[in-house]
């Protein structure tokens, strides 16, 4: 999250706002009617909502992940057993599988999305651009269960394309790691296209001309000017792609069931009670692992975003 460095100061600010008398500079009214009015009541519902609907589940998650219920006595006690179990055996495989799937599809989506976006700019057609951008919006939102069904109907065992091209004889199966990557790209690539287009717009024609008049080839322009300027946006896009792929559950659950080990599917199974006695909180520990990984990946992005803003902002 983009805030860690400033968090202490901002937390201080929250504390001030919740006191009955906010700092004068904040409350001073410009219209000059009546007594100074307090503004913080307007934001109380938001903070209350977040505390109850997000804070409560999140804290329960973090607390219970470190709690084990003794099957014999029913008493709960503090322990790191859940976390230990969630990082060993089948659950470790699931976590690794999720990370691998997300990494691969994020890299592919970043590269393909950028190439398509650049091709779109290269085609220099306003109408085409408008059409592709709105289509990208639709496909980027076409994920989850409907996407899984579209792919099953296309490339599944009795899918239209499978029958048409006799894919079964080639040994292709949709219900594998490759199949999942193929399906994930269907909503990730359009998301990358709409994410990266503004950054590509920021590559000025003058920069190319300047590079060209200094004798640089196109390859040199991209290597020394284009990509370095784009790099923060590309990495930001890649992080977004990773997060999207990492969090997605429905597509994989509907398409492959449990045949490809993924942590999201294992959490869903554990939540529906498919765990050993005494490991009821295992799902929470696995969820906590997911949050930690997502945090680590997001943290990569923060210093880069600032540099990007300087050039493309």
């Amino acid at each position, binding site marked *: *999250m*983009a*805030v860690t460095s*400033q968090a202490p100061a*901002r*937390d201080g600010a*929250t504390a001030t*706002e919740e006191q009955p008398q906010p700092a004068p500079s*904040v409350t001073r009214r*410009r*219209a000059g009617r009546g007594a100074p009015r307090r503004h913080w009541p*307007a934001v109380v519902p*938001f903070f209350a*909502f*977040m505390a109850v*609907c*997000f804070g409560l*589940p*999140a804290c*329960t*998650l973090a607390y*219970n992940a470190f709690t084990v219920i003794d099957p014999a006595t029913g008493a709960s006690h503090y322990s790191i057993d859940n976390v230990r179990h969630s990082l060993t055996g089948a659950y470790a495989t699931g976590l690794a599988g999720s990370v691998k799937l997300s990494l691969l599809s994020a890299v592919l989506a970043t590269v393909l999305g950028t190439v398509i976006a*650049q*091709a*779109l700019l*290269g*085609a*220099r057609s306003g109408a*085409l651009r408008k059409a*592709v951008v*709105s*289509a990208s919006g*639709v496909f980027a*939102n076409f*994920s*989850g269960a*409907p996407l899984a*069904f*579209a792919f099953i*109907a*296309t490339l599944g065992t009795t899918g239209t394309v499978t029958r048409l091209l006799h894919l079964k004889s080639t040994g292709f199966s949709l219900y594998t790691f490759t199949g999942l990557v193929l399906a994930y*790209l269907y909503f990730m690539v*359009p998301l990358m296209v709409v994410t990266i287009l503004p950054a590509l*717009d920021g590559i000025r*024609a003058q920069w190319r*001309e300047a590079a*060209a008049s200094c004798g640089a080839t*196109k390859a040199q322009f*991209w290597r020394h000017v284009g990509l370095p300027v784009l790099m923060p946006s590309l990495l930001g896009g890649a992080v977004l792609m990773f*997060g999207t792929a990492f*969090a997605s*559950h*429905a597509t994989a*659950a509907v398409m492959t069931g449990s045949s490809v080990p993924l942590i999201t599917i294992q959490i*869903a199974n554990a939540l529906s009670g498919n765990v050993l006695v005494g490991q009821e909180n295992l799902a*929470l520990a696995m969820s*906590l692992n*997911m*949050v930690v990984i*997502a945090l680590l990946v997001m943290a990569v992005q923060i210093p880069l975003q600032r540099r990007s803003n300087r050039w493309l902002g």
Partner: protein
Amino acid sequence: MAGLTAVSRTAVPRTARKRPYGSILVLLLAALYFLVPVAASLWFTVDDPAKGLTFGAYAKGLRDDGMATSLGLSVRLGLATVALGLALMVPTMVVVTLRLPRLRRVVEVLCMVPLIVPPIALVAGVSTVLSWEDDLRTTPLWGTFQALHDKSFPLVLVLVYTVMSLPFLYRSLDGGLRAVDLKTLVEASRSLGATRRTTLCRVVVPNLRPAIVSGSVLSLAMVLGEFTVANVLGFEPFSVWMVHVGEYEAQLSVAAAMLSLLITWGLLLLLTNLAGGRTRARADRRKPTV
């Protein structure tokens, strides 16, 4: 990166008149990848290997009570989520922009945090909280818990979906607030004698309309397609019904998937028409070169 280099060549003014074949090829390949699954799915819904062309799946879908019920539930959940999200976010964002700028960062972080907690992790926490119900049987809170997971309209889904839609709402509203000089507008309105309520309804909201519409549409699209949370908590909105029916009626579920693509498309089309006018004009003025 080879593709990138080849493609970029065409964009240089010197070679401007050359047809951008590289770009066209890339776009055609992309179009193929994106259109084939849609076309193949549509064909799948109308093609019966035994009987040939049939529209049975669509007829069955229209007759199916489960479809109407689940789609209705999804729509009601979506509208309630948007209403709650806007009721929370519009006043907060406006007040923070105008009067409490020091809170801006805090609100931003809180709205973006749901992005790092995947839905499955969030629902793991929520289901734990819901499991306290039995311990609270003797307290007044028990009634609240009962209302939260009422099968006909599960409020808990509205609450969780609202949390999940905060990033969309925040981003659109933040963009909208940056695009207008709200402070001047509000001061002008107030100095002309308008009350706070009038200012909010007739000055602030109309100026934020594109942002409000785009945030709402994105949230609505998210709720209509959501599967994970509803499935884990045991409710049956549209996408969960689609999966359940898929276990015995493959064609029907694919037809439902196509319907949901159509709904998404319709929603986003609505968005461009409702919110596009003003923003597009502004964007065109700013970027004449594109």
